[in-house]
């Protein structure tokens, strides 16, 4: 067991955990930030995606010891009022079915449209391919990413 000081969603948290513990389980079990989901544990499904210094990263493979001193953003901290362009697009197009994978999808999409301001559909499909949606709401996810990118552009 070791003590860690973490910066998550702009707040400082102190935890005492085994240093091999992936960030995912620190978020979920220690800090009560359960929006980040467990799907596969091997970085294949994207349900656990968070922003690690702004980049979409799989928290299930990221040991807590590796994030000290970095900025972590989870779905809970993506926006103050549930109104990030990606969240708004998800609401507008009513994307979720079961909803379980959607936090990961939203975190991947929000990091992606930061990097690519004007993505083509092919680029969206490629960027999102690491996130599995078992309900297969892929058509709506794709449309929502395109909509969010447009919204973000018109805001900036």
């Amino acid at each position, binding site marked *: 067991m070791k003590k860690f000081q973490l910066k998550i969603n702009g707040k400082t948290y102190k935890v005492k955990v085994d240093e091999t513990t992936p960030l995912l389980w620190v978020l979920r079990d220690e800090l009560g930030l359960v929006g980040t989901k467990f*799907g596969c544990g091997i970085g294949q499904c994207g349900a656990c995606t968070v922003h690690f210094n702004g980049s979409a990263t799989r928290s299930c493979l990221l040991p807590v010891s590796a994030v000290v001193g970095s900025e972590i953003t989870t779905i809970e901290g993506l926006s103050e009022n549930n109104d990030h362009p990606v969240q708004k697009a998800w609401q507008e197009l009513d994307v979720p079915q079961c909803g379980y994978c959607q936090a990961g999808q939203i975190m991947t999409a929000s990091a992606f449209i930061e990097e690519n301001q004007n993505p083509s559909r092919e680029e969206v499909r490629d960027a999102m391919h690491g996130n599995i949606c078992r309900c297969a709401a892929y058509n709506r996810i794709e449309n929502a990413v395109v909509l969010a990118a447009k919204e973000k552009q018109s805001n900036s």
Partner: protein
Amino acid sequence: METTKKNSVDRRLFMKTSLLASGGILFGFNLLEALNPKALVPTTVEDLNFHEFNAYIKIAENGKVTLFSPNPEIGQGVKTSMPMIVAEELDVAWEDVTVVQAKLDTENFKRQVAGGSQSIRKGWKPLRQTGATARQMLLEAAALKWKVSSVSLSTKEGFVFHENGSKLGYGELVEAASKLEIPSNVTLKNPEEFSIIGQGKRNVDVYKITKGESLFGLDYKVEGMLYAAVLRPPAFGQKLKSFDATQAKKLSGVVNVFQFEDNIAVIANNTWAAFSAKKLIVAEWSSDASIDGTLELNSKMETIIENDKLKSLKKKGDVKVALNSSDKVLEASYDSSFLPHNCMEPMNFYANVTPEKIELAGSIQTPQNSVNSVAKKLGRDISEIDLKLTRIGGGFGRRLTGDFVVDAAVISDIAKKPIKLVYTREDDMTGGIYKPAVKYKFKAALKKNDLIGYELKEAAVNRGMGRHHAQNFPFGAVPNLNIASGLVQSEITIGWWRAPVSNFLAFAEQSFLDEVAISLKKDPIEYRLEMLANVKGKVNYSASRMIAVIEKVRKDSKWGSSVEGTFKGFSAYYSHQSYVAEVVEIEMKDGLPVIKKVYCAVDCGVVVNPMGADNQVVGGIIDGVGHAMYGDFEFENGKPTSSNYDKYRLIRMNETPQVFCTFVKSDEDPTGLGEPTLPPVSGAIGNAIAAATGKRIRKLPFVKNWELNV
């Protein structure tokens, strides 16, 4: 509006009103019994008390309405669409409605299930009657206040209106309404009066989902709760001989390690410690050498078909005579493998077993059955058990089996602690409940440009088709027919998988009918329409409704027109009382099919929530495409050969077709929607591949080891 005897209120549904101390009124109704037409509940309205109701309409004095939704929400949208039906007949503004998930009432109700695409189908009438009854009572209350006949009054969006223009809000009427007799006849709206049903409404949880709020079983947490992980025998049918947990117990955070049945449970302070400790257990299992795998089961299925060890499910005419007198006999065998469900939320459940009571909470499609199983397993009375339903991160039939609920209760009972059992993805994929592997063997007797005999022999592992499957099309369209089925037994635990049986029976049948059409040198759609036009005798489907969806998809997909390099395949299937026709458009790239577009026409009667319905049908199709293209799950000596997404391939966005779906306008009562668009698509893909390559693929998945599975 018309009041008819037909709409008389079933007394079992209803209903009791009560004034709330906090202000407002509660209408209690017995939805689950209403959904279960066979249930015999010899109670009178007077005998009922609130404990016996599981669904409520709550109207506050400020007019805000709360609807309690009893059915588990697995992504099929019932938490939105079922309350929409009540709100429609109650005549309130949807914006004034809040929906709350009700918990299970284990004492009085037989069926509280998310399965079989039945929630809307069975809930349609009782939900409407419920809303209409409450509305009628509010209307009567206004009539008394104004001292007029209720006939002269009308309602809209939570208000009762007088002819003279005055109005009263529902909230102002609740006290008076609660003192009235419950009416035995109510007026239901005509479909053209609907203002909520048929309008797209967002998933009631969408804002919570985009915010990452705690909603799902895996998110459920109680103070003092510990985490449990389970090590199971690697192969189905294996027994635990001994184990050494010395290293596992040394791990920080581990509280306990113990055996239950042939499994080993680890209890820890957090999920990661439980998962990590599980890997450190050294277990010795009985030999798996004699346990069947996929190869052995396939050969056993071959054998029972060859030896005709099958039971006939449906017969018409004499298929043997037809085969002997034909000009040509077409024969083909189709196969599909076991499939895991792979819900994104791995199986998990909370259990707190104490001498006084048992608390359960989590994601389950069959809460009632699971409570019964826990009671039986632990020798407890169901009245001691409480089950809370959470939002469910995917069902697909996996959560119809509550094995993990029972395990959680057993573990909590032994540990004497509140625990959350959590599966790793590997536990989830290898720990059972699969779509059964199945083999279909067809014979078609062709004579004078027509199909005169149709024979289908099925062999399946543990569970095969039922009589209702055998009575579907092409029964009625072929003069001589025989459908027979037999089972091979295995320790591999099978269960329901989205659109059970239909899912891959449709693949086999729709591919084979395409082979028949090609052999008869007929266009597959023309030929199907011809078959449907000639349906004779009593059948359990409507040929004309099927014809309508086929005509629609033929037009939408521009069937018959050709673009260089693209190929089309057609399929149409009836399941869950809904009619679905699909056309798939593919291109071939490096010898593999790329699914570009899917056109689909659906007749599911009235579409309650078009926004949710579109999500269901498109999702069902892409799910079907994914499993048809890549779904491959095998066993060696009873042990799965893949255990996570590195080896087991699920469809991803860059492999996803664009889906164009239309609903045929209908005033018929609504039918199933969560499942029926999945079955036809695999056949349509196979038929498109045959059109593109001349190769007929009779075994799923279409792509195996990155090659066409010829």
